[in-house]
């Protein structure tokens, strides 16, 4: 009907001089945008269905395609922007909650881009990472505040269970169900080759992946999908998901149509039932309840595995982190408001939560002020986009980072943000077998390994330039950072000086 007509956001532009009618665009578009007209012997496209995933563009052998943003416009209006208007139309039409995928795309400040790094000169030599040892090994877990000796005076190892990583990166939680089996396989194999960990997310652990257990973090989320004794024993660590950066305060949602076969078995729920995770854990209404769950999980696994508590970055994140640090958790994972998701209500994703840089800085400082920073390690996520973001995060006080969107990009994601439709053309955020095929784990895991290895080299180069050869000396080293274009309050919260000081 005319009243709910929305002009397509994207237009397919085809250079007919180059198009050879090979029809690969038609065959590979899950949204049925392209079609071949026999009579006219040419390809046609239905722009309304295009989600700008670039599958056709990437596969076209003669580079005949491109996708452009339509220049069909509303009258310019800085307040009633085009997207604000269109969202009203869609809600007037459907009466439903707007859903979006991936992380907050709106124009909020990115603090990583306003922080600059130091380099050593003259008074302190920089170190050459190609010729000298440059160490990025980290341990995650609690540090003791006293030593114990045996009868010969030798030191006893009194460290609680910990994780040992060759580099300060881990793959963050993405559930089996929100992403495909092949995507999980790529993450698991890459984690194994790199020696790091990946996270099951709240979808449980598929039985085929138990063999990667020593590189797996098993997650216990509010829905407790797939949680049972063997699941807890399988992983190298257990993560309690209290919140997620993209949607603080609410739980996950996987529609019943996706709960089939292996997904249903792995989550341990009947086929066709909607997997709606409750907003809170219904047995955790307060910090002491969390402490109880942490110790239950530790008892269930014989105190052999570290427990991670994952929280979203919200306003009083420092106080929450302080409570968690005193409740027996070994690692706190903080997810910033830019974090990605398979599906979340648009308004929550775009308006709830705070930037990870500020959350990290205030949590790190608060824990130090209270003298409990050594009780836990801090892992941060919620838009870590490059190795320089990692260096800045560690200098602000993190022990390690979680990446997820970056990992999906390595696997072929083009950030078209249509995951909630379940028709991911790249085989990542879908369960349709023909689409899942498109992600070959032999290719996928190699790309993940390449990306993380490349980042590790870059981190070493940056560290060498700063005159640091072991990453322990970068952790919390805020004098290595300077801000540009930040106001006094922002500098104060980040705990760094302005460039020039």
């Amino acid at each position, binding site marked *: 009907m005319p009243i709910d007509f929305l002009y397509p956001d994207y237009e397919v532009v085809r250079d007919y001089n180059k198009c*050879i009618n090979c*029809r690969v665009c038609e*065959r*590979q578009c899950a949204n049925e945008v392209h079609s071949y007209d026999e009579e006219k012997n040419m390809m046609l496209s239905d722009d309304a269905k295009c989600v700008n995933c670039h599958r056709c563009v990437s*596969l076209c052998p*003669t580079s005949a395609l491109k996708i452009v943003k339509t220049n069909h416009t509303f009258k310019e209006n800085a307040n009633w922007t085009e997207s604000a208007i269109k969202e009203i139309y869609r809600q007037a039409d459907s009466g439903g909650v707007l859903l979006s995928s991936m992380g907050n795309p709106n124009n909020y400040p990115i603090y990583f881009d306003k922080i600059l790094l130091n380099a050593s000169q003259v008074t302190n030599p920089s170190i050459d990472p190609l010729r000298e040892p440059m160490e990025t090994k980290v341990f995650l877990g609690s540090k003791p505040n006293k030593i114990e000796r045996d009868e010969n005076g030798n030191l006893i190892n009194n460290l609680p269970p910990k994780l040992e990583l060759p580099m300060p990166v881990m793959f963050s939680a993405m559930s089996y169900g929100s992403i495909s089996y092949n995507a999980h396989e790529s993450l698991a194999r890459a984690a194994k080759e790199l020696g790091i960990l990946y996270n099951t997310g709240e979808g449980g652990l598929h039985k085929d992946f138990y063999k990667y257990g020593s590189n797996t973090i098993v997650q216990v989320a509010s829905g407790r999908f797939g949680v049972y004794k063997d699941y807890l024993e399988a992983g190298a660590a257990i993560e309690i998901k209290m919140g997620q950066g993209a949607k603080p305060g609410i739980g996950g949602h996987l529609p019943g149509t996706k709960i089939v076969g292996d997904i249903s078995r792995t989550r341990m729920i009947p086929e066709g039932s909607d997997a709606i995770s409750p907003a809170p854990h219904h047995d955790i209404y307060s910090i002491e309840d969390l402490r109880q769950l942490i110790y239950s999980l530790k008892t269930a696994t014989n105190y052999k595995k570290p427990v991670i508590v994952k929280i979203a970055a919200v306003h009083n994140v420092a106080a929450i982190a302080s409570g968690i640090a005193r409740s027996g958790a070994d690692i706190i994972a903080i997810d910033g408001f830019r974090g990605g998701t398979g599906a979340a209500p648009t308004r929550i994703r775009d308006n709830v939560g705070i930037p990870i840089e500020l959350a990290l800085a205030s949590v790190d400082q608060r824990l130090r002020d209270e003298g409990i920073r050594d009780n836990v390690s801090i892992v941060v996520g919620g838009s870590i986009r490059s190795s320089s973001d990692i260096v800045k995060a560690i200098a602000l006080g993190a022990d390690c980072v979680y990446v997820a969107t970056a990992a999906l990009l390595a696997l072929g994601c083009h950030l078209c943000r249509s995951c909630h439709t379940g028709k991911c053309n790249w085989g990542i955020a879908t369960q349709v077998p023909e689409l899942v095929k498109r992600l*070959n784990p*032999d290719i996928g895991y190699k790309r993940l390994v390449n990306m993380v290895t490349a980042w590790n080299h870059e981190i070493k180069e940056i560290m060498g330039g700063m005159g640091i050869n072991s990453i322990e000396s970068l952790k919390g080293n805020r004098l290595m950072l300077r801000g540009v274009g930040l106001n006094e309050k922002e500098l104060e919260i980040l705990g760094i000086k302005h460039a020039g000081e």
Partner: protein
Amino acid sequence: MKRVYVNEKWCLGCHLCEYYCAFANSNEKSMVKALKDVVINPRIRVEEYNGISFAVSCRHCDEPLCVKGCITGALTVKEGVISVDQNKCVGCYTCILCCPYGAVSPKEEGVIQKCELCINNSHGTPLCVKGCPNNAIVFEER
């Protein structure tokens, strides 16, 4: 000897291998020039049925039936690779009937064509392998 092997687990039925094959054997430098307004007749063909698809091309058998059946000796084996001498081929199509895989096909001028691992064209290494977007076609020794 390296051969082209196909894994139907990863074949998406996108048919790009066919177009790259046609381009490789076209003697043109640009794919657009080679294939614009052309109905292709590639030496590798995608077979699809019931949700399964994979590409079929010459297996360069150790005991090739096509060579055995060739009445003019146009088909010969050189270091494991079975190639066609177009000048000798008379278009009897015996080889097409003999090949148990359907890997041989007629060419426009009445003679036959089959995959020759891109040895005789400017690419030097099979282009279907390079062009496959999902590693469903590999070139290796087994």
